[in-house]
């Protein structure tokens, strides 16, 4: 299956990645080649095969449902590119 430019635009939007208009076509070509290549899986008979979602067979332990960390706003915000006091900041999202 080949990905057209509109499809690439749409997945770039879903992934929130700015893609320059002039690179859309070569990108569509590259992604189509990869998708075309992985489509070889269609020939594998997987009827009745359960999808593998984990390689670990053991059931993880449930920990106690208690707060075990927190109340460290300085550490949490230390790497924020534009933190203000105890807050992250973003462009205005409400009018």
């Amino acid at each position, binding site marked *: 299956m080949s990905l057209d430019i509109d499809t690439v635009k749409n997945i770039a939007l879903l992934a929130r*990645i700015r893609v320059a208009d002039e690179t859309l076509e070569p990108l569509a070509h590259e*992604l189509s*080649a990869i*998708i075309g290549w992985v489509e070889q*899986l269609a020939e594998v008979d997987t009827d009745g095969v359960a999808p593998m979602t*984990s390689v670990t067979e053991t059931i993880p332990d449930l920990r106690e449902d208690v707060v075990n960390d927190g109340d460290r706003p300085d550490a949490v915000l230390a*790497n924020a590119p534009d933190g203000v006091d105890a807050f992250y900041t973003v462009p205005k999202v409400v009018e």
Partner: protein
Amino acid sequence: MSAPLTELTLAKARDGLASGDFTSVELTQAHVEAIERARDLNAFITETPDLALERAAESDARRAKDATAGPMDGLPIAIKDLFCTEGVLTTAGSHILDGFIPPYESTVTATLRAGGAVMMGKANMDEFAMGSSNITSYYGAVKNPRGPKDGKDLVPGGSSGGSAASVAACLSLAATGTDTGGSIRQPASFSGIVGLKPTYGRCSRWGIVAFASSLDQAGPMTRTVHDAAIMLGVMAGHDPKDSTSVPMPVPDFEAALTGDIGGLRVGVPKEYRLDGMADEIDALWRQGIEWLEAAGAETVEVSLPHTQYALATYYIIAPAEASSNLARYDGVRFGLRVPGDTLDDMYKNTRGEGFGAEVRRRVLIGTYVLSAGYYDAYYLKAQKVRALIARDFTRAFENCDVILTPTAPSDAFAIGEKMDDPITMYLNDVFTVPSSLAGLPGISVPAGLSARGLPLGLQLIGRPFDEETVLRTAGALEAAAGFATKP
């Protein structure tokens, strides 16, 4: 002292420290100088000489009080820049993590640190561990210390390329790596060192920048099999902070190195004999079979019928998981932020500028295969084929104890080669991806030289949590190969 301190193995350096032949500060200083001399390799994104010497002095102080912290106390190692290190820049080889200084330490590096290992710096790597050449790093390519060849600099392999170069060039005694589809084993093969990917769940993934969470696993990169056993023993163990790390006791891996593989059944998968496989790769594989037979093992042909579908399966599952994991890079909480008029614009600008071409490609592929209307055809299908690939191994291990294969389909290629088409680069991992999908332990042991005089590795794959058999067999292979780790 006959050999320079930097050329010691972990085991010999441990003994030298124990018998007082030298101090950790002396050993560390020798590595600081080696790293300065070898900057041209670009093996490190961040060097931490002051921190290293400080920790070395602490190690010497512990030793003076007869209170060493473990088998790696005082030993200089490199840390792949995918491991979060407290107070030390952590980039994952990406522009998008500009200036990220973790306030915490990954569990594996915390365990190494608590055990006294001395971090020399953060090793270069492919961006977000996506690559087989170290070429996708925002911080530039790493040169393989075995090069240049025919006038061209060579890649060290990837994604743990800086780690491999550091160990091969004696800039650290060992290094941590991570392996998602071959990122420890393939660079080990290209660089002439030992690289061990443990069973999925053997080491904690907590604090390691996530690529594909169902595949990522940390492991040691060393100059000998014995050293891999020592280092894995420190890195491994259950961690309550990673629910996929398995609550199993950590065996004494060093004790597994008996050298005795008498009666061991070594499986040779017929599907790994690929059409168009290089003669020298095939010849080395046959040589490996002969070596193990001469050491008392019995070889049996096994079948892994879904091998040919492993790469395509991997290139659906890994990008799908990556697209989800990398959603966290939003320009809000850490790293790069590129302004925009709206929140969405800010996201798009930050991620468009912050991710390199290969990462962008994989996030887009991952987004596509998970998107409405395509999920069943691609992602769900890949998960089913993955189950078949894992089942192939389970069945093969009914007839053998360990599996022998080549590690990579070629020796190290030149920087800039295999860049025209992403799929050509993906084929590097043809022998390592299947066992990754099955979560199995695998090791690459340097076993010979190509016609061009470059290292080639052989891979051993084991049953889940049977790193002991993998290491024991690797030890026998190493002894037979007599590979000179020094170029």
